[in-house]
């Protein structure tokens, strides 16, 4: 195997380069801060010349997600990216893709809202990402990178999961991870896939009927069966795909739960608190859906309290509460509006809300 290549890159650039290397067939996007580097990098790299990957700036976010819908229906490895307001615009298309059971990758480099909000990093789109987002009973598989390395790695992982379950996958990042530069090891370039899927609209042999991709079924009983099948798929995802990382949880009396940028801040907070003799650990969900509820429940038996740390008014904390069913006190600490909490603030909040509480 070829050696991995070491680079210093922004999170956004890492997503773009990783997409080329993962053998993506197409990227359709529309610029918005703080993720425009994904589109810019791909435009400059012009992978159509090397791998044949199509990169297209659509006329709008709505057009971009529907190009993804079309590409995915053909069985192609396609993706889009945007930031919060743009992801809201894409929700109709995302719901259709989930309903039609097609694979694709959506990257959300979150900025603070509501509305146009600000361009600074936030985690205020948690509910939108993990509870569906668009209309209808559905789930995305949601990956939360906490480093530039994971921004790169989760592109390939995201495509793999998308095709394994024929389900849209979202990388839920934020402006800090998108904009910051870190070391990243890039995998060697893979060729684009030549597999023709039996569910796709392309490659129909004479031996089978043509495939129809739709999210519409006017028969309520047939629609309900479709819903049941979707739910069964989500239960499979919940069983198989939970990913998490733990930091100093072995002897922990207290636990921080945080993902993405908040997890980086919280890891430092653990070090600071440990230096003061407080036995605290960190659980970092890598998959936000499926949420690592099982492990949290297990850990809760040894814990005196849990602090959920998010750059939001408190969204993931609801999943933490559901996971531990009231067995241990749970509280939330967060900053909003594009403000990143400092490790010192996290430690202070832990003392105030959990240890002293």
């Amino acid at each position: 195997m070829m050696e991995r290549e070491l680079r210093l890159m922004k999170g956004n650039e890492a997503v773009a380069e990783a997409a080329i290397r993962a053998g993506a067939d197409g990227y359709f996007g529309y610029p918005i801060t703080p993720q425009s580097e994904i589109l810019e990098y791909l435009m400059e790299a012009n992978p159509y010349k090397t791998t044949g990957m199509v990169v297209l700036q659509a006329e709008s976010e709505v057009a971009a997600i529907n190009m993804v819908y079309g590409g995915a229906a053909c069985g192609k490895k396609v993706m889009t990216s945007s930031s919060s307001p743009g992801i809201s615009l894409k929700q109709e298309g995302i719901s259709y893709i989930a309903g039609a059971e097609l694979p694709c990758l959506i990257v959300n480099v979150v900025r603070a809202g509501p509305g146009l909000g600000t361009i600074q990093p936030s985690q205020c789109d948690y509910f939108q990402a993990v509870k569906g987002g668009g209309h209808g009973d559905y789930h995305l598989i949601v990956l939360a990178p906490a480093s530039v390395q994971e921004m790169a790695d989760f592109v390939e992982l995201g495509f793999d999961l998308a095709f394994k379950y024929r389900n849209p996958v979202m990388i839920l990042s934020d402006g800090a991870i998108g904009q910051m530069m870190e070391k990243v090891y890039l995998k060697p370039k893979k060729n684009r896939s030549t597999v023709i899927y039996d569910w796709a609209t392309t490659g129909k042999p004479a031996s089978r009927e043509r495939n129809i991709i739709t999210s519409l079924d006017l028969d309520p009983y047939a629609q309900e069966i479709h819903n049941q099948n979707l739910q069964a798929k989500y239960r499979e995802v919940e069983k198989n795909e939970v990913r998490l990382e733990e930091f100093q949880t072995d002897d922990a009396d207290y636990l921080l739960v945080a993902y993405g940028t908040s997890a980086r801040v919280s890891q430092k907070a653990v070090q600071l608190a440990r230096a003061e003799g407080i036995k605290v650990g960190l659980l970092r969900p890598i998959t936000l859906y499926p949420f690592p509820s099982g492990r949290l429940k297990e850990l809760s038996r040894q814990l005196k309290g849990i602090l959920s740390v998010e750059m939001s008014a408190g969204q993931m904390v609801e999943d933490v509460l559901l996971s531990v069913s009231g067995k241990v006190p749970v509280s939330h600490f967060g900053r909003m509006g594009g403000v990143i909490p400092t490790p010192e603030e996290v430690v202070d909040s832990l003392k105030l809300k959990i240890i002293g509480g």
Partner: protein
Amino acid sequence: MTEEILIAGFGGQGILSMGKIMAYSGLMQDMEVSWMPSYGPEMRGGTANVTVIISSERISSPIIKSFDTVILLNQQSMDKFESSVKPGGILIYDNNGITRHPERKDITIYRVDAVEEASKMKSPKTFNMIVLGGFLKVKPVIRLENVVKGLKKSLPERHHNLIPMNEKALERGMEIIFKVR
């Protein structure tokens, strides 16, 4: 070893690229690095700042509020970030345009008059390399040879002819930085 650095000044002064060269240099020395820019409204005119962390260990938070070394290159940055130096840490500043000099007594203060020196050298764009040279003199966390390697990595090939000039600026920065107190 972990060195947490903040660089702040006017947008367009080469603040972000100076941080980038630091990060690349750390990379060349097998260190862990992170580079976190202010990408907000500041970048669209006004002040710019960047946090660079160079460490022999995995970097936890790339976002911090107090730093081992703070490099301040205009008065607005001085007003905003003088308080961000850790007690016992280092503040480096350029005298150009400064109306209120740093006042803290619990830190070491250095001055590198890079704007003036760059204009003397007739290469105003190497200003940030003079500052970087000054920093490396007082905080030799990266070897000069690795900075040159970092420069090569971060500059596009078509600008590689500028590397000797930048090397000279780095060396000049090392010579002219002085301790205020």
